[in-house]
Each structure stands twice: as C-alpha cells, then as structure tokens.
C-alpha cells in the first residue's frame, strides 16, 4: 500500500528551484571545499577571531552578503531561497564566518527598518561590515517574544539594560540588532559597536568550537531614538528572523549531515577488524544507511523550505519541518559517526566530534526538533 503522493502537497508545499540557486550551489560547492579544508577548520579553532579575513573578503566580493537584499540597497535582489544552498555548503565544510548572522541581520532591517535605517546599514552589510543579532537571554527560552531586556527613554534617546547571550561574532560587528522592551512592547534596536564598551562583551565558551559567540551586557548602553526599529513591525520581524535563521541553519545542518555520513563511510570502507572491512557488518552498514535516508529526507525538506520561504502559511510549515528534520538527521548521523569510529571517535582529533558539536549548537539556537514539531502541531492540527 502506498500513501497518496499528491494529497499533502496542497497543504505543505512542493519543490522547485531557480537557475540562480543552482549556479550559486555549484560555485559554493567548490568555493567552500577549496577554502575550508578540515586542517584549516582545525587551525581556526585556535584563532581568536575564528575565521580567515581573506576568505571573508572573498565571500563579500562574490556578492553573497547581498543575495537577499534588494538592488536598491546595493544587493543582488534575489531571495533567501538562493542563500540556502550557500549555507548548505558552508555547513558541509564547517566554514564558519559571520555570513549567516549578517544575512539574518539584513532581513531584520528589511522587515522592520525605515528608509534611513535600511539606507544606512544594508549597503554596509553588503560591503562586508559585520552585523549581528542579540535576541536570546539568560532564561534560555527559544520564544523570541520572551524579552526581559529594556530600553527606557532618557533625554533624546534610550538607555538599555539587561543581558543578551549568543550574540555571534559580536566582537567584529559594526552593528548589533537587539530585542528589548519599550514600555512593555518588544522592539528591535540598532546598537552601533562604538556604543558598546569592550567590557560589555564576554566571549562565551560554546559547544561548537568553530564558531564565535559573546554575551552582551546592555546595562548603561545608550542609543538615540532613531535607533529603534518600527514599533508596528517589530513583532513580525522577530517571526521572520526566526524563520530565516531556521532556514539557514537547516541548510548548514544538511551540509554537516552529509559530511558526517561521508566521513564515516570512508572509515567503514578502510578500517578492518576480524579480517573484514567493518563496512561489511550490517550492524554498521544499516544504521549508516538509515542516517543517509534521514539526510535525504532532511535535504528535501530544506530545499522545499527554501523554495516556499516567504509564502504565507506554507512557508512557515516548510521551514519548521526543515529545521526539525535537519536536527533529527544531523544529530543521528553525527552521533553514529562518533560511535562508529570506535576509540578514535572518542578523541578530539576525530572529525566526528566536530559534527556532533555542530549539531548540538544548531539545535540549541532558534529551536530544536521537538520545539519546531510543537509549533507544527499548532499549525497543522
């Protein structure tokens, strides 16, 4: 018996792709492979900045920061659908840069910024200045509406207070977009790096050693009134930030899943025990096949999320399915990657650990599989 192939498509969206998407996918595939070999990834783990400024500049020169930014603001004028395949290849090669956070920051500006704010910052982001987001707080809630940081009117501007966590690449950022409440309502506010004292940033020790993240103490930082994003659109903007982030994460996670599987397969094809390649044993062969099946399902969801992104209703369902599915696939593949490398898998030298830690990191930001399934339950039933 088979289920009806088409009967869910109306509810959940289908699949297609654009020529631009495929071109970017092809370029990103070779770029990320060439620029981010695994020994370089490991070398950058020990580097304070955590990424290679020369590679960052190449990414800027390729125009990737402006893909989903309108041409009027210096961008390419495509959409998040075309960003996803790049993120996928970055995840595949563990190429860590502020690419994702800059892309999301630009989307936040587009969602709730006025003409002056967009006009000021979007061209700068496209040109490679780092912008990041400060949304989460010590309470650890994934719900982005749960904001305890505040902005209080003071003279011509606002004085901020509270603590933000997981502000990625904050140290290099020219702009931090933070969520605060103003008189009880959640607002987004632009904080220029120059307004942030060095002591307000603490580098966090995070599970994914390839990335950089900071805690930001807002207490005492002041911003002008013009730094607040539109009151009416801040709520929608948070929703869009969540979905755009989840999409890019799903893409990165798919890439990482692919590598975790490929890396493990190589080992199963070369390591011998009891006189046989261990890949001959079904106890290893079948679970890695299950991981591969999970990966392909997650990738289909991710490509559908990219294609349907921004579509009312269907887009949100597709994105949440993509993140939930990517989390499940990446966690399983990376977990088995550690196990199937045996004693070596337990060492810091084994790349399986990089993928396992990356999967945990992604699950911890913007919701894990269970969180997105709970959201889906409300959307579907």
């Amino acid at each position: 018996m088979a289920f009806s192939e088409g009967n869910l498509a109306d509810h959940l969206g289908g699949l297609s792709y654009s020529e631009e998407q495929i071109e970017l996918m092809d370029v990103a595939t070779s770029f990320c492979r060439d620029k981010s070999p695994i020994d370089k990834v490991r070398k950058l783990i020990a580097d304070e900045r955590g990424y290679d400024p020369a590679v960052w500049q190449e990414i800027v020169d390729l125009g990737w920061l402006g893909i989903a930014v309108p041409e009027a603001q210096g961008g390419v004028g495509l959409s998040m659908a075309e960003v996803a395949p790049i993120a996928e290849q970055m995840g595949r090669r563990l190429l860590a840069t502020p690419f994702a956070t800059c892309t999301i920051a630009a989307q936040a500006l587009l969602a709730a910024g006025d003409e002056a704010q967009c006009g000021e910052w979007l061209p700068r982001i496209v040109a490679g200045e780092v912008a990041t987001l400060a949304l989460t707080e010590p309470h650890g809630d994934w719900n982005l509406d749960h904001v305890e940081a505040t902005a209080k009117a003071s003279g011509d501007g606002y004085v901020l207070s509270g603590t933000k966590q997981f502000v990625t690449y904050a140290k290099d950022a020219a702009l931090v977009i933070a969520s605060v409440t103003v008189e009880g309502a959640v607002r987004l506010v632009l904080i220029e790096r120059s307004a942030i004292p060095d002591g307000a940033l603490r580098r966090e020790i995070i599970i994914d050693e390839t990335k950089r993240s900071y805690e930001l103490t807002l207490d005492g930082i002041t911003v002008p009134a013009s730094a607040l994003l539109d009151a009416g659109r801040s709520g929608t903007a948070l929703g869009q930030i969540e979905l755009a982030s989840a999409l890019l994460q799903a893409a990165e996670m798919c890439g990482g899943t692919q590598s975790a599987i490929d890396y493990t397969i190589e080992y199963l094809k070369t390591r011998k025990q009891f006189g046989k390649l261990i890949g001959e044993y079904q106890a290893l062969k079948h679970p890695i096949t299950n991981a591969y099946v999970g990966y392909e399902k997650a990738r289909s969801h991710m490509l559908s999320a990219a294609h349907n992104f921004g579509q009312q209703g269907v887009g949100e369902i597709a994105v949440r399915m993509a993140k939930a599915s990517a989390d499940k696939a990446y966690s399983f593949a990376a977990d088995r990657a550690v196990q199937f490398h045996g004693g070596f898998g337990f060492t810091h030298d084994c790349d399986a650990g990089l993928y396992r830690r990356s999967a945990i990191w992604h699950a911890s930001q913007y919701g894990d599989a269970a969180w997105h399934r709970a959201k889906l339950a409300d959307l579907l039933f």
Partner: protein
Amino acid sequence: MASRPTAAELAEYEAQADAWFRENTPKDPGFMLPLTFMEVSTDQQFEFLCAWQRKVYEAGYLGASWPVEYGGGGLHPDFQRIATKVMKKYDGPIMLNAIGIGWAGPLIMDIGSEEEKKKYIKGMLNAEDIWCQGFSEPENGSDLGNAQLKAVRDGDEYVLNGSKIWTSLGDRAKYMILLARTSNDGPNKYAGLSFFLSPMHAPGIETRRIKKLTGEYGFVQCFFTDARISAECLMGNEGDGWQIAMKTLEYERGAKVNLAGGYFLKELDAMGVVELARQSQRGGKPLLDDPVMKDRMVDFMMDIQALNLNNQRRRMGPLVQDRPMGLALMNKLARTEMIRELTEFSIGFQGTRGGYYVDDPCAVDNGYWHRSYLNSFSATIGGGTSEIQRNIIAEHVLGLPKGR
C-alpha cells in the same frame, strides 16, 4: 515513440479521461475489495478486478503508450501518465495484473523478442492472461541468487523440478516469470540462472494456497514436478537469468518508470489518519489534545511530506547531483517502513476498539487500519526485505563493501 504532445492535446485528453473515470469508476460493489494485487482471495474479487482492468484497457487508459501492434494505444507516455493520474483521482479499484503490466510487460518491451511482444502484451493489458512471479523459494528468499529450482534442457523442452513460494495470483495466473537454475558449473551462483516466461497450466505444476497474516488468501506455493515447458520459454540465453531478474526488480522497486500505467496498490490517505485521530478520544478529550500523540503525528506528517518531496526531487537533476540514484533506491524502503509504522500507530488511536478486527460490526472503518498494518508487511518483506534494501543502498549508493 510518438511525438511530444502539446499542452492543449494533453488538456483535452485529461478532460476526456476525467469524464470517463467519473462515469465509469465502480462504486462500492458490496463486498470487500483487495487493497493490493497481493491479496485477491475470492473468485468474486478476482472476476470483478479482471472486468475493471479490461474495461479501463478497452477505454484506452491502460497501455496507452505501448505500441499499437502489440495491443497498446501508441500514444506518447505523457498521455498514460495523465490517465493514471486521473485513475488515482477517482480512487477506483487497483489494476489486477500487476506482475504482467508492471513487471513482465516492461521487461518484454525492453528486451523481449518480436514474437514475445506479439504473444504476451495484449493479453496482459486486457487481463485475459494473468501473470505471476516465480523468484522466491522456500529455502531461498532474500538470497535470491541461490535459487535452486532446476530447469534441464531435454530436446525442445525444459524439465522443471523444484518449488516457488509467495507467488501472488499463482493459482489464477496463466504465465509466470520464472527464475530457474540451468547449471551449477558457473564461476558463481548467479551464472547458472536462467529466466523463463513459463506457462502455469502444464502437467507437473501444482499450486497450494497460503493463508496470510491478515486471514486473507492471495498467494501460493508452486510445486514443479517433472513439469515440461517449451524451450522457447527461455528469455535471452541460459545464464542471463540473474541480470534479467535484477532488471525486473528495478521495475518492482520503482527505480524505473512504469510504462504501462495504472496502479496496483491502494493508496493510504495520510489525511485519513489525521481524520481518524480527530475522531478518537482519550480521557474524554480529543486524542489530538494529547501533546505526545500530536508530536508523533507531526513526525509522521513530516515523514510523508519528505517522501513526497523526495519523489519530486529525484527527477530534478541539479538537486540530486551527489548521489543521483539515492532517492530512487531508497524509495521502497522509506515508503514501506513509514506505512508500517503509521498504520501501527493508527491502531493505537482506537482505544479498546483497537481489539476488533475486519468484519466485526463494531470495528472502526471495518478494520481497515488493522488490515492495512498487517498487510504492510507484504511490502516491507516482499520485493526484497527492508534489510536487503539497506544492503542495496549501502552498496550501490554509499559504496560500502559487500559481505554479510
């Protein structure tokens, strides 16, 4: 092949097909119809399904893209795809002669001789000649390459000795695609296998019905005792059997397009499961208020959607660059396992009524979900078990070494 049709031609054809299926798709016949071609239990079911397939064929909506000289419609394959889509839309009974039109037919069209095409194709399409498949043996199920049924050449005939099992429609079929051993001398077990298009009505061939897990009948064990068939039944040459059988399994596993059209398995309506859950209660509240049940249901919806998307993606070259065959080869595994788990889950919704079975007046949907679950094993076992499917994916897609 016929030339590519225009959108207008296809639209006109679709309108005709739509009108025909709306008018002719049978209503409830008053007795239970099989969900798949594998559980045709009664004469009543068999005759009803034969008549329906013949009617669809005569209307031109089956084999529409096969050549006219063999009994087909001679149209471009796009027309048949539309006919099949419309057939599905009206959710009529299955096409009965699955092994014929879905497996043996495409095989004969691919590699058969002119005589074979003339002799077999039309009878498959109009359901006059029912086909069955003789691959598995009692001692050789998953290890198909070790098949032992002997075929010994004797003049213009082969003499068959041995047994085949799990033969759907074996008691009603006129022909069998048969994998038999013509030699034990080859370099390996595969080299001695040969492929026959064998008659089923010959002295020395007997069948015995096997009752299934569901309580239904539908497949048999076949016994061959000094059965003689014409040497012309050999397909290709002696020793080609394994290659031809593998080609056939590609049709069965859905890795190749189904050229004749139609469907052989009744579709499970995923939204029907949601409906069932909505109607079910737990502790005086709707079942879907329970976050655990809801979460599992979401997981299934994601799985169903993933397979739906996989099926779209597998035809999109740029989106399957790294492992082009992966999605096609995992389809059977992923789909059949998902259906097994989903139908099992659906029984749990029913509370105490999960204890009823088919034909009890109080059974939910006349036991449809129980029957679907028990039947789901036919797909996770038949056509290569899920475990064999994992080996195939591991070896052919991921490049892992053979060896058990």
